[in-house]
């Protein structure tokens, strides 16, 4: 007969759930508020969301490192805390972008904000666990919300984007499930710490290697899709093009941070187990990703699409750091994303403020390069800020991403992968071309049309967001030190 189960509240360590609960409750509150009064303005929801996220942030910050909770399903280690913090910060920057001076479809739904908060909760679950089940459920919660958020932009392109993302996501989910099944079959467990223990004992069994490699491949396919690694990146440019600019900026950061955390857990485990094959594969994919994305970005006519490829390329860059599987490499991932977050969100916010409902410059694109021709004459400050973002993305010092880049490259050098650092360098040089192209259009060309209100969508909150992103981009040199030492501390504390 079954024994009654005694569970003490203390052993559950419920505080580990606090951040996600805040987000979930927040989402529910928004839904309820909408039920009570349909006429509430979006600004209320925006502010409410920010407030909730701030509380969430605080709750996350308060978590102790290396704690487990709730039957060890929850894992609050260093990377889970920093990734949650980064997710929340990115969300706080993202959400005010809803307050445009023009009305866009998705923000007319209070559900948008609820789904947004649920998505954050999903990501938080995803990063705060080493249980493949919870990771899967969290991932799907977040993904399903994200598909919806994309579709809510409500125009043909965004539906197309949502469908593509969704379909490929479903395929990736199948691979994830299959991979987990193999892992489960190999170890009888879906908890990574346990998996690692068992796998370590089974490494030398004959004939098993194919299953171990296979499990890594199946999982890799799923995460390569999420991280948009070549050749699983094909969705990214189209989805980025179809979605609204701020959401693209968000998508290029937050889901990837979450996916990277899980990748660190999973693939780091494999590499630690001595499956060198995984490292090689990751490196090859990383190099292919950054190179292919770069050369494809060269030929883009649209800034947003170019930035999409650029984001893919950056992801490849970071994947290389992951493959190193050193503390520095892992630190580099987070440092890179912390810096990339501001710059990239800033850049997409700049696109957002220039967004028109009618495509005046091209039949297809919202943000063709030609739209920005002579931007300096129309909006000098805007052009300068955009140029700063581009320079930062290109890795020109002292702007933020430069520090991320050298940290990644240094990590590569430290692990003896000098060729990798050289490849990264060359790729940065190629990448500089397309960033420069925008600068050239903005600064060196004459406006295509006589007078055009580029800053069509500008509003005070957007200005604040952009201003903040600018300061973070330009002043990176002053906060890199505390950031690095915090990240390094957190990561090494949790043993990565």
């Amino acid at each position, binding site marked *: 007969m079954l024994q009654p189960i005694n569970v003490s509240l203390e052993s559950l360590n419920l505080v580990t759930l606090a951040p996600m609960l805040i987000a979930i409750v927040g989402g529910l509150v928004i839904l309820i508020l909408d039920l009570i009064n349909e006429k509430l303005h979006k600004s209320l929801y925006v502010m409410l969301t920010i407030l909730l996220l701030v509380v969430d942030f605080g709750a996350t910050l308060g978590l102790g490192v290396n704690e487990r909770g709730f039957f060890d399903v929850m894992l609050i280690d260093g990377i889970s805390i920093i990734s949650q913090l980064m997710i929340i910060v990115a969300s706080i920057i993202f959400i005010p972008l809803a307050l445009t001076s023009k009305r866009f479809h998705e923000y007319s739904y209070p559900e948008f904000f609820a789904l947004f908060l649920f998505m954050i909760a999903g990501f938080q679950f995803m990063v705060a666990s080493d249980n493949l089940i919870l990771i899967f459920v969290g991932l799907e919660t977040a993904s399903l919300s994200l598909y919806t958020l994309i579709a809510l932009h409500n125009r043909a392109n965004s539906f197309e984007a949502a469908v593509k993302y969704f379909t490929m996501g479903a395929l990736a989910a199948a691979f994830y499930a299959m991979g987990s099944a193999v892992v489960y079959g190999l170890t009888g467990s879906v908890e990574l710490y346990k998996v690692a223990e068992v796998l370590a004992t089974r490494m030398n069994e004959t004939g098993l290697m194919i299953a171990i490699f296979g499990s890594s491949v199946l999982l890799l396919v799923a995460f390569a899709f999420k991280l948009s690694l070549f050749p699983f990146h094909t969705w990214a440019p189209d989805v980025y093009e179809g979605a609204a600019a701020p959401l693209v900026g968000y998508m290029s950061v937050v889901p990837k941070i979450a996916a990277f955390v899980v990748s660190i857990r999973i693939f780091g485990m494999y590499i630690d187990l001595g499956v060198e094959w995984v490292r090689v594969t990751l490196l090859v994919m990383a190099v292919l990703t950054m190179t292919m994305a770069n050369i494809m970005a060269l030929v883009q006519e649209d800034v947003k699409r170019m930035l999409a490829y650029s984001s893919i390329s950056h992801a490849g860059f970071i994947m290389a750091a992951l493959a190193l599987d050193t503390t520095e490499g892992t630190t580099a991932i987070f440092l890179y994303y912390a810096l990339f977050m501001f710059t990239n969100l800033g850049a997409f916010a700049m696109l957002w403020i220039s967004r028109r409902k009618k495509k005046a410059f091209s039949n297809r694109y919202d943000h063709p390069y030609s739209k920005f021709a002579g931007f300096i004459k129309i909006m000098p400050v805007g052009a300068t800020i955009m140029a700063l973002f581009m320079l930062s993305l290109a890795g020109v*010092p002292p702007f933020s991403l430069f520090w991320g880049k*050298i940290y990644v490259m240094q990590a590569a*050098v430290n692990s003896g992968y000098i060729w990798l650092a050289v490849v990264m*360098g*060359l790729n*940065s040089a190629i990448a500089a071309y397309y960033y420069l192209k925008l600068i050239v259009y903005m600064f*060196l060309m004459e406006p295509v049309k006589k007078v055009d209100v580029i800053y069509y969508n500008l509003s005070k909150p957007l200005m604040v967001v952009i201003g903040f992103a600018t300061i973070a981009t330009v002043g990176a040199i002053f906060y890199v*030190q505390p950031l*690095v030492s915090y990240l390094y501390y957190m990561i090494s504390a949790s043993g990565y």
Partner: protein
Amino acid sequence: MDNILSILVFFPAIAGLLGFIVDKESARVYGITVAAIEFLLSIWLWVSFDASNAGMQFVEMIPLIPDFGVSYYLGVDGISLFILIMAALMTLIGMISMSITENIKNMIITLLFLEMTMMGVFVALDAIIFYLFWELSLVPMLYIIGAWGGNLRIYASVKFFLYTFAGSLIMLVGMLFVAYIYHNLTGVWSFAITDWYALVLPVEYQLWLFGAFFFGFAIKVPMFPFHTWLPYAHGQAPTIGSVILAAVLLKMGTYGFVRFSLPMFPDASVMMITPIAVISIIMIIYTAMVAYAQKDIKQVIAYSSVSHMGIIMLGIFAMNAEGISGSVFQMLSHGIVSGALFMLVGMIYDRRHTKMLDEFGGLAAVMPKYAVIFGIMLMASVGLPLTIGFVGEFLVLLGFYQISPVMTLLAGTSIIIGAIYMLTIYKRTFFGPVTNEANKVLKDLTPTETWSLIPLVAIVIWLGVYPKPVLEPIDNSVKAMLEFMDEKAITKEAKELIIVAKSNQGGA
């Protein structure tokens, strides 16, 4: 004023920021004033510089990212001091003589930022800070070429940017690797060049690292075959852009060799003497010949810059005080002379809106003052004794003779083929009858133009006749560096070569 270097670096930047507020009409005066103050500050630096001290002076050090070994670390020695002063001077004079009126405010602000980066490169003692300013200097230059340049300006500016950028990224990998080795040996992260100097690296590492740094520097110099961005950049840039590009930005590359490659990789440097010398000789002869074939005056001077940079490179790898000091001096000399020549070409361009040689002829009769100053600069450019151009070239060739007489002879042909293209353009521009109607009514130099050139003429002659005040501090620092390299060298060949090169066998 212990922090004079910081002031030097950031004064123009702050002035540039404040410049956004200054009214468009007054921007030019504002710029000139700021540049003048900056120049005076640099002079003050010289005055308070202790010429007998060969080490770093006015050192400032603030840790920025201690976990990563990056610190704000500045200092100046005899090698960098004068390049610094020249950069300030050329910016000032370039601004005074500037004829641009379109978007003048943007130009002034850009120039001031550019000045910051130039100052920064030459005073940085932390590799990352060096790299920071190094890369940052591309941006204002890109804008200057791209916004005020000729028809191909965008192509030229993008080419300039990407080419240099690509090279320096490889250099960055090299820097990171040095830092890694330093960390491995000492357990401390540091990007301070002075710390790196203490590293004694295995020869194989030295060679690889030398190669990595070489890419960054060689493209900037620019060395053959990486030079093709330069003619475009110069050909398309507005006058002020060409002046600063030639006078200061190119020097960053050669300065890099002196500051990084030599003291950090003495053995590799010694081993690379022959390849570098061969490239330098190709630069000297080949580009001089290409210069001769040009149809555009500015292109001639652009290619001549490459040729002259070949001399500078050769001197750096002479591995003796004569050669290296000569090289550093030649950097100054080339800066001033080519800067002046570009200004002169700009002046005629302002009048005729063409730089094609065929359009001119007989200008000496129409514009005598212009012809005289052009003539003086030309003579300095071909290295006439008692002009600034001779001292450096002479010392470089003299120094390199110690390494290889045959190569010196080949490199020495620069004095012949330099004269060929220079005299040819001079003849075609200034001599003969005035055939083109448009040239008959040209006005001679305006007072502003004259007065912006006179100081350069004065310097050209002063330093040609009495280079000692400049040469001595340079020489002191170079000698100290050579001592150091000799101590540090690990291969026998390098040690011997540096010892032998360090002092001649007088009377032996």
